């Protein structure tokens, strides 16, 4: 009974790789890359790569956070607008009230954490679906962003961060570039990799990671074995808020100005990236790496169509077709993987 089991077929490295949830996404990413790289020289040039990695990086940071939340069985629709809110707070505080960029960022972080905490608290206390709760936050933040910005500045955009104290260091850290093979890449790409690695580690190798899978998979059962489900969920909402703060700061530092509707509509894109990367909408399954690759697929398709110079009117059509094909490739590979496994 303790020797190799006759009821198990090959368990080599190949199989181990094939059953990872990211596998499909990786294949989807390769397919999308091959498609565009084959047709556009700029796309595969190093400048091109730097180009499409740039939007993928901020999207990726958010997608990873949203993926954790989705694995934990919840949604956050307010995350996109929150990136705008944190950016607005930062720029307004440092341009209108003379705070240094660092202090302004700290205040924005506190606000973001508060929003995340409230989202989480309302969800676990009222047991309302997080879709509805964060929809409420989403709308309210949108109103606050516009109302406060208009009230304080009279317009719907604030700018001038460049002149604020501490701008240069903050920019270098969050929104600068680094050179690789003679081309400038955005620092945000490093942050993205870091966030992905950290999230993967938490998910796969720590106790909270185990709890995240559990509360998403079956909250009642998880509670029954003593998982602190409420704390886990609130922490997840706060993590998402921190990611939103990070992305909001990166964007604000880079563009030195923020519009009151910044980030609007992005909440959706984060969820898309996470789902392309293999997260289940119902919770309990997914991976951080998958979400990152989902963001990459989305970023490549989004920019690749522009590189090919296809008519902007049809842009959405191609984007839709591309995403559908990528997820189909993804699914086919996973099926094939399950078949060859025995």
């Amino acid at each position, binding site marked *: *009974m*303790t020797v190799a*089991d006759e*009821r*198990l077929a090959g*368990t080599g490295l190949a199989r181990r790789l094939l059953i990872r949830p990211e596998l499909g996404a990786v294949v989807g990413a390769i397919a999308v890359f091959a498609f565009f790289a084959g047709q556009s020289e700029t796309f595969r040039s190093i400048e091109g790569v730097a180009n499409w990695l740039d939007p993928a990086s901020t999207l990726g940071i958010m997608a990873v956070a949203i993926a954790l939340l989705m694995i934990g069985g919840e949604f956050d629709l307010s995350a996109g607008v929150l990136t705008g809110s944190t950016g607005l707070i930062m720029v307004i505080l440092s341009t209108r009230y003379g705070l240094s960029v660092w202090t302004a960022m700290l205040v924005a972080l506190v606000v973001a954490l508060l929003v995340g905490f409230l989202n989480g608290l309302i969800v676990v206390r009222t047991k309302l679906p997080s879709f509805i709760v964060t929809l409420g936050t989403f709308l309210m933040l949108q109103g606050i962003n516009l109302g406060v910005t208009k009230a304080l500045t009279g317009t719907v955009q604030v700018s001038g961060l460049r002149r604020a104290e501490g701008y240069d260091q903050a920019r270098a850290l969050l929104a600068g570039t680094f050179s690789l093979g003679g081309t400038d890449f955005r620092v945000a790409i490093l942050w993205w990799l870091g966030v992905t690695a950290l999230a993967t*580690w938490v998910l796969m*190798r*720590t*106790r909270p*990671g*185990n*709890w995240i*899978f*559990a509360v998403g*998979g*079956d909250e*009642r*059962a*998880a*509670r*029954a*074995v*003593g*998982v*602190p489900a409420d704390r886990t969920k609130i922490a997840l909402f706060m993590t998402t808020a921190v990611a939103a703060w990070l992305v909001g700061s990166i964007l604000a530092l880079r563009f030195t100005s923020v519009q009151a509707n910044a980030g609007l509509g992005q909440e959706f894109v984060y969820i898309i990236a996470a789902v392309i990367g293999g997260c*289940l909408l119902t919770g*309990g*399954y997914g991976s951080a790496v998958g979400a990152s690759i989902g963001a990459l697929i989305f970023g490549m398709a989004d920019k690749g169509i522009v590189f090919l110079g296809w008519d902007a009117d049809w842009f959405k059509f191609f984007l839709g077709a591309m995403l559908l094909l990528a997820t189909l490739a993804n699914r086919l590979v996973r099926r094939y993987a399950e078949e060859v496994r025995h």
Partner: protein
Amino acid sequence: MTATGGAPARGEAGFAVPLLETRECGKTFGGVIALREVSMQVRAGEVTCVLGDNGAGKSTLIKILSGVHPPDSGVYLVDGAPAAFTSPRDALDRGIATVYQDLAMIPLMSVWRNFFLGSEPSLGWGPLRRFDVARAKRTVRQELRSMGIDIRDVDQPVGTLSGGERQSVAIARAVHFGARVLILDEPTSALGVKQAGVVLRYIAQARDRGLGVVFITHNPHHAYPIGDRFLLLNRGASMGEYGKADITRQELTSLMAGGAELEQLAHELSRDEPPGGPKEIR
């Protein structure tokens, strides 16, 4: 055959404070009264069997004991002091481990993750504290093997296990983590004869180690030999708590089976059998 009330059935643990005690506990779900005024005690080194028909309220009682539901009425005492468990975590922290009938496992999670869920072994300090995966897998494999369950692959999601395999994992977990009280809600129902035997042996071992065990089963052959006290529930209400001395195997069996009716039934079934075998249908 008389109800013993609070009198202990066994000598050595007799006059100690019971580990768990409910006094006139009741529980209602919406319009459904699932449990009314049930009193019971769980003592160290004893096995308390809860018996009753389907829907009698056994699982509901269990869930009160393990902190899933607070009782709607009555008091629940742990070590003689009123307990206000707000979650199963609180109960676990007091050393009360439970195998639930319907809240077993997270289907999408692997066997080893499920096993240690909520009580993960750690490695390292501070922010580098992490789940000791290697140890977890090793422990799970050992525990399951010693129960006679051989799971091929502890990485397999629990959702793909057979009914009995899933049950075995849940029992192994409770046994592993049960520090003072072990509560088992129909643990043997999905198990093969061999595996059921192993579980009964575990219960006996736990009892001998001084744990209080609450055991629910529909099988009198499982209940009688191992039980020290028997709590009978009927339609949500207690029919009394009996010490082993106060009840015979026959009485227990017929209480569980609803009496003579069964003999008649066995008759009907076994058309190829000599009419001598009726009592076997239990």
